[in-house]
Each structure stands twice: as structure tokens, then as C-alpha cells.
């Protein structure tokens, strides 16, 4: 258990800058999720923390101690890999004991810890098996067990659930959360799945193009995104985006001519081009709504329905609880929750507050 501090960590391969000046600090026991599309640099950042790659610039400190130049084995960090990386020639218990053996932990102590970990993860019955005799979920547990057995100061997870089927993924997600709550080990978790990010992280860092776009708690990220990329990346269905023009500091006009109140003044001057973002659940069908259009698609999912509507050349999505009676081509009027509109600069994508 420890704090981790990254200072201005950069990584380039030749002329390609994979990571640019990443600085962040993890508090003791924190669960940080690194999220972003593929190629955003999240795996490289993870490898740098693990010691598998060296940063081009910058430094890392674990519990206040500089670890930038330490080999992976010398850092007290454990990692769970996407493919689980179980050694196929060793049994489950040998796999779990391997990092201990490398650290010259005595046999008796090794056996004891293997037993503890196996009990914690309920894999005692698997200890004698080889990895290829295990199911995906079982392999996942063993991989976590191997990382746990080391009693590391820091846990790294590299997309650990992406090889599991949907149902198992949900179970394992809860399992990982429970495990973290129980052990309290500082954790970095890489994923490209925003649901995993939202449900697991105490904070989330959204990465794109080697730059941290925003570092915040899940809910802040959702309700108060720093830019259009974050707003778009987090949330499903995706946030609605409408072209708009500022009328005054607290009023905008859509391309269709409809004017909408913002509820509070923003840093905009009249005539400025904007992108208006509004989450699907902040729109509702309302006969008194100021937006009018026609229903194009209705997608019921059971608990709720996604209704898509054409409002004068732009399409918006509404998230409506329960059953809906609407059909395509029905006329619809839409209202938005007050204060739910987010403004972005169309050029830079930056949030305008």
C-alpha cells in the first residue's frame, strides 16, 4: 500500500510522442482507472509504471522513493495482464508461488501464502491444475491471485476483463471491486470500457493522444466534462451534440431557429458558434417542450427506451424510463432539464463554462 507520483512523464518512439508530460498522484488505497481509445498511450503509461518501459523524460516515485530507473522486479508492483499471462508449464499453485520464489521466499511461507490467496479467491480446488485446464474466469482469478500473493504496494490491471464474455465480465468486475475494498491496495486499472471505468474507479483519467484530458471522479467526469472528447467518451448512449449560436450569455439558438435558455450565464458573447451537448436522460417528451420534431427510431431495452428524433435537421436521442408508446414518424415535443446544457467550443472542443 502506497502513494504513487508521476512527474512530467513523457515517452517518444522516434518522432512519435506517445505520452506527453503526464503528471498525476495516487493517494494511498486509491483505485485509479486509465481510460481511452486504443492508441491513446494508456498501455504505455502502464508499462512505464510497471518498469517494462523507460520514460523518455520525467520520473516516478512510489511511497516517496524514486523508482524511475528500477527494473520491474525491483519495484514492489504486481500486474494482471489482459491474456492473464499464466505460465503454461506450471500448475496454478506454482504460478501463484512463482513471484515469491523469485523473491527467495522460503517454501513454507510460500505454501502458506498460496493457501491464503486461494482461499480468498476460492480457487483451492484448482491449485493442482495447469492453466489450459481452466476456464477464462478461473484463469482470471489465478492471475489476480498471483498478483495478490506478492503483497505488492501497487496493483496494475491491464484490461483484465476484455477476454471474458459479457456475463462473466460483470461478475468479475464486482469481484475486483470487492477485492480492492478488502485489501485496500493502491491500484491502476487500464480499460477502454467506460462502464468498467465508471463502476470501478475512485478517480478516472481520460487519456487521448498521450495527454490526460481530464482526471476526476466518475460522477464529475460525467456531469462536468472538461471537453467534448470526454463528454463523448463517457456515457452511453452518447451525449447529443447540436450546432448552436450564442444569443446572449444565457441563451443560445439552434440551427432550426429554436432558442433555448441556459439557466445561468456562460462566458459567451452573442454570435459565437457553439456545440451544445445534452445527455439523453436530460431530454424528455413534454407537450410544452420548446423543441419539436419527429420520431425516427424507437429502441426499447426493457427498463428504458432510447428514442431518436429529428428536430429540424439534427438528430437527438432521448432516454426514457419504462415503456414508450411512440412510433416512428410520430410528432414529438421535447423539453430539457434546466441547467443540463453543456457548451463547447467547436474548434478546440474545450468546455465553455
Amino acid at each position, binding site marked *: 500500500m502506497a502513494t504513487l507520483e508521476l512527474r512530467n512523464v513523457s515517452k517518444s518512439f522516434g518522432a512519435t510522442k506517445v505520452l506527453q508530460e503526464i503528471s498525476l498522484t495516487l493517494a494511498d488505497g486509491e483505485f485509479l482507472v486509465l481510460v481511452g481509445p486504443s492508441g491513446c498511450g494508456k498501455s504505455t503509461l502502464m508499462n512505464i509504471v510497471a518498469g517494462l518501459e523507460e520514460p523518455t523524460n520525467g520520473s516516478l516515485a512510489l511511497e516517496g522513493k524514486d523508482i524511475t530507473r528500477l527494473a520491474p522486479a525491483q519495484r514492489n508492483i504486481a500486474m494482471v495482464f489482459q491474456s492473464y499471462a499464466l505460465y503454461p508449464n506450471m500448475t496454478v499453485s506454482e504460478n501463484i508461488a*512463482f513471484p515469491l520464489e523469485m523473491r527467495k521466499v522460503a517454501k513454507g511461507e510460500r505454501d502458506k501464502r498460496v493457501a491464503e490467496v486461494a482461499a480468498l479467491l476460492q480457487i483451492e480446488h484448482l491449485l493442482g491444475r495447469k492453466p489450459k485446464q481452466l476456464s477464462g474466469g478461473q484463469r482470471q482469478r489465478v492471475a489476480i491471485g498471483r498478483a495478490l500473493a506478492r503483497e505488492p504496494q501497487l496493483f496494475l490491471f491491464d484490461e483484465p476483463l476484455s477476454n471474458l464474455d459479457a456475463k462473466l465480465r460483470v461478475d468479475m468486475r464486482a469481484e475486483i471491486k470487492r477485492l480492492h475494498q478488502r485489501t485496500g491496495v493502491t491500484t491502476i486499472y487500464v480499460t477502454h470500457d467506460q462502464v468498467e471505468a465508471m463502476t470501478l474507479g475512485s478517480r478516472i483519467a481520460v487519456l487521448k493522444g498521450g495527454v490526460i484530458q481530464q482526471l476526476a471522479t466518475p460522477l464529475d467526469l460525467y456531469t462536468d466534462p472538461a471537453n467534448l472528447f470526454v463528454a463523448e467518451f463517457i456515457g452511453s448512449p452518447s451525449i447529443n451534440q447540436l450546432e448552436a449560436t450564442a444569443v446572449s450569455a444565457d441563451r443560445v439558438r439552434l440551427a432550426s431557429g429554436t432558442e433555448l435558455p441556459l439557466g445561468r450565464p456562460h462566458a459567451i458573447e452573442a454570435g459565437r458558434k457553439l456545440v451544445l451537448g445534452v445527455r439523453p436522460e436530460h431530454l424528455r417528451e413534454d407537450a410544452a417542450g420548446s423543441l419539436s420534431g419527429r420520431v425516427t427510431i424507437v429502441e426499447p431495452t426493457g427498463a428504458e427506451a432510447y428514442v431518436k428524433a429529428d428536430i429540424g435537421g439534427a438528430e437527438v436521442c432521448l432516454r426514457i424510463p419504462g415503456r414508450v408508446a411512440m412510433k416512428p414518424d410520430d410528432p414529438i415535443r421535447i423539453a430539457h432539464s434546466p441547467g443540463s446544457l453543456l457548451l463547447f467550443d467547436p474548434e478546440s472542443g474545450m468546455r465553455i463554462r
Partner: protein
Amino acid sequence: MGSGADKVSRVALYGILIFLGLLFVLPIYVMGVNSLKPLDEIRGGNLMALPMEWTLEPWATAWSTAQIGVQPTGLKPYFLNSFLLVVPAVLISTAIGAINGYILTQFKMRGANIVFAMLLFSVFIPFQIVLIPMARTLGMLGLAGTVSGLVFVNVVYGIGFTTLFFRNYYAAFPGELVRSARMDGAGFFRLFWRILLPNSAPIVVVTIIWQFTNIWNEFLFGASFSDYKSFPLTVALNNLVNSSTGVKEYNVHFAGAFIAAIPTLVVYVLSGKYFVRGLMAGSVKG
């Protein structure tokens, strides 16, 4: 499926396949049956016929009394030479290939591609191009005309193949396993011994079989760098068959050829799958 025309073509297909199969078996069949006949039966009879009088005499002669060069020693001492050549040459070249493949794939270093390209091309060179200087080198090292000299030569010119095999295998080795082991604390040798090598059984088998077959069957180096005491079996067999003196004992030649064929044939029958994989790996580069 199942129409009349289909059946006819199916029968024709099997007919052709069986005919070709027999054609392919013919030489080894001829070798076999005629090594078990008395000489008269070959001269007067039919090479394809089974022996009328079965005899192991030709095998005994080929093994222990046939004239090889000047001595009536039979093939026995040369069979032994080939074993003394093949076992160390295969083990050494395989071990070197494994280490090279490990280093070339798991460690970034400048010039690794050039090293690999040089090894790769060395697999194709005609050995005539190295015969003269190698003969001089063996002479200077005092290895001319010895089995050790042949071990050395076969190791040197086998490294290209063995490195190629292991490099390609380890290039496809799951990177996460290696990274995981490094995080768990495994160093250079431990990573190799505990993680890579235990998961290399297929390529080790392929390489050993490939090297065994190649070196056992090798002729040019044997003919160039050995003398009558250190001939490998292929050279001794060629001397037996092509020595122009005396009566041609065809049955003894066939027995001798069969003796030389048995080790690689046994390996092929027991592990043909790996032999084919070696052939394929040797032909599809990179």
C-alpha cells in the same frame, strides 16, 4: 455428392493415388527385398520379386565385413562415427539456436536485424564456397580428418537454421508472459530456463529432428573433411557402392543403404509431424 459420375471420379482418384503411392514405395521396397536375397537371385531374377531364399547374410556382410576403402570392416565403425558426429552436433547447434533465438527476440539491440539477416542467408549458401578455407582451418586447428572436425563444421553451418527456428518461435511467444515473469522477478537465465524453454517443447523437437536428419544425411562435408577412419556413414556407403573393384554385391549395397536409412526413417515414422513442421519452418522465412 453420391452421383454416378462422382463415384467414378472417386474411384479414379483412389486408383491414381494408390498407383503413385506404390511408385513412391518402390525404391525402398526394392532396397528391402533385395537386401534379403542371395546375389544369384538378383542377377538371374526379378528385382521386384520377393526372395525365394530369405537370407540375412547381406546385412551381416554390410555391417561387419564389407570392404570400405581398403579395410574389410563393414559399415559398423562408420555407423558409430555418424552417431559420434550427430549427437554432439545436434545438441550443440540446437542449444546455440535456442539461446540466439531468445536473445534476438527478447532484447532490443542495435544490429539485431543485420545479425538475423546474415544468419538467414547463411542457410542458403552452397557449401562449395566454404570448402577450401574450411579445409585449411581444420588443418590449422588439427581437426582435419577427425569426427570432432565434422562436429565443428556441422555446428557452424547449422546455427543459421537452428537460430531461425527458435527466433521465429520466440517472436510469436506471448509477450505478456515474458513481461509478467520479469515483473515477478525473473532475470536473464531464469526467464529462459523457467518460462521460455519449458514452453518450447515443439520447437525443440522440430529443431532436433531437423538437425538430426540433415547431419545424419550430410555427405559433402564428410567427403571433404574426413579420412577413412572418420568417414560418416554416408561417405562409407558411397565408397561401398561405388568402389569399382571386385564383384558388385548388389544385395550388400541394398543392405548397407538400408542400414544408413534406418535412423532417419525411424525418426520420420515416429515423429513425421515434427519433421514436416521443420520443413515448413525452413521454407517459410521470417
